[in-house]
């Protein structure tokens, strides 16, 4: 297994606050990789650094063998990293199918004039994009709501829509930022199956942040635990779950003993 995403000595400061400190880790190709840690431990910052929303203060990020440190977000997405957001960022006033079609846009070849004149090549391409989007919608079981405005969908459906939108950019690596946040146990159960299916059917690597321990222990094949911007454990989920430092970070000093 070669490393798809490789982060080397990455640090990020917000003024004097060390949000991420000296991270070095590899995400191997084809795995479901989990990043866990208490609130404020720098998980979302890590995602923001990988997707180019912030440039790291120090260190390098390599993706697929190429240095992507400091690239603009849309270039990074076009290079093959897609993500979802902890607090949903759906295009609320667009229909479900349009939400997904937006993510396919960067592959569109029809130029400006071809589009406004609606030439045959444009129509053909639109048809292809629509079919692709409908396939993703079917996979996420959203076909009944395909033409509704996205803002009218229930919460669980929006989570699935965001994953579908991320997949529409044809990524190699999908970053999921707390995919189970706000979901009930049944929805979480379905999500676990979905994450596995996404990995198997789309041949992507999944890198997720999660608080939900059951989900992480069940789905992830490799886990990294961070606290206050520093790595405290890394390895298979079963081993990490027993690590005293991890228990301490999550439950406090007394918790580890009882």
């Amino acid at each position, binding site marked *: 297994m070669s490393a798809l995403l490789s982060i080397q000595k990455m640090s990020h400061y917000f003024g004097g606050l060390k949000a991420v400190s000296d991270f070095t880790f590899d995400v191997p190709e084809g795995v479901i990789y989990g990043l866990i840690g208490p609130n404020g431990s720098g998980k979302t910052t890590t995602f923001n650094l990988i*997707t180019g*929303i912030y440039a790291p203060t120090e260190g390098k990020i390599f993706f697929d063998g190429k240095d992507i440190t400091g690239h*603009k*977000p*849309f270039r990074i*997405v*076009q290079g093959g990293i*897609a*993500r979802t*957001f902890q607090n949903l*960022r*759906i*295009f*609320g*006033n*667009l229909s479900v199918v*349009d939400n997904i*079609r*937006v*993510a*396919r*846009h*960067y592959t*569109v070849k*029809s130029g*400006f004039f071809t*589009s*406004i*004149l*609606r030439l045959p090549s*444009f129509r053909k*391409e*639109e*048809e292809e*994009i*629509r*079919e692709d989007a*409908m396939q993703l919608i079917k996979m996420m079981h959203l076909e009944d709501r395909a033409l509704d405005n996205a803002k009218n969908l229930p919460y669980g459906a929006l989570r699935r829509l965001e994953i579908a*939108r991320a997949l*529409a*950019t044809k990524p190699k690596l999908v970053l999921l930022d707390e995919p189970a946040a706000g979901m009930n146990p049944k929805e979480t159960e379905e999500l676990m199956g979905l994450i596995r299916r996404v990995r198997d059917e789309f041949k992507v690597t999944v890198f997720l942040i999660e608080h939900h321990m059951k989900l992480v222990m069940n789905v992830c094949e490799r886990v990294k635990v961070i606290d206050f911007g520093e790595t405290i454990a890394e390895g298979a989920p079963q081993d990490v779950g027993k690590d005293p430092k991890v228990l301490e970070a999550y439950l406090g000093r007394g918790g580890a003993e009882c």
Partner: protein
Amino acid sequence: MGNFKLPRLLIVAVIFFIVVTVLSLDQVYILNGYFMVIINRCMIFVILASSLNLINGITGQFSLGHMGFAAVGAYVSGTITTLLLKLPPPPPGFAISGSMFIFVVAILVGGISAAFVGFLIGFPSLRLKGDYLAIVTLGFGEIIRTILNNIDYVGGPRGLLGIPKFSNFTSIWAFTLLTIVLLRNLVQSSHGRAMLSIRENELASELCGIDTTRYKVMGFVVGAFFAGVAGGLLAHLLQIAHPTQYGFLPSCLVLIMVYAGGMGSMTGSILAAFCLTFLTEGLRVGIDALPVFTFGATTFRIGTEWVMVIYSVLLVLIMLFRTEGIMGMREAKLLIIEEKKK
């Protein structure tokens, strides 16, 4: 292409054209010259409002100087046609088609100049997130007015005079229809969806692989182009281009049309352009008819400047009671391109 149907939009536009033409015929004469000028102004404002809608409503940016681009279009095309008229006249057979050709080219050159100015303004200010565009376009509107006031070649404060009357109902109608069709096609294409996604959530749009700066600039430049076209049409209708026609207040008028019609709805922009242009004229006539009040030695007269006050009140009322405008974000069926059902 067995079941080819004429687009309903075209049918409605042609019916509108025939009805107005018939009513304005000398034998019928229900619509006199005065009404025709208002209808022509309405259509020009349809172009202005729906192009501003592309910037403010679709792409979600905030431009305050739309009339500045109209000024560029008006002065450039007006200068071209007045200069060409001074050339020796063409041979008799070519006279009419030749002047029509010159007119269309002049309008398009005006539009392209406005688009170019739009690019110069939009590119630096749209790279930033936030309200910088509003500040820059507000400044631009004033700058262009001041510049025009001080260039003697285009008449300075007298305005550019002697522009040939090339605009008529037919040509304005054709340009308006073309604008509506092209803008509709743009909005309902992949490029248009990219612009809409920027309005909805700029960060998410960027993380869907969209070069947001590029699409913000594209929306802005296309909007500026059509504003330039509208300015050219207006100049050739009124036969004058004057700096005060393109100041801040007219820009606000177009902005009010977009908001009153509903941000992001072209149908709304078109409706509002018609309603508000008629309302302006109605108020002007109505206010002129008001008597002059006298209190002792002082006379108090309500002038046409009160039109803008009434507009502001109208805008406040819209904000209070119908925040989303006449149409909200809905679009009339006429303007929606149908997709095959799956």
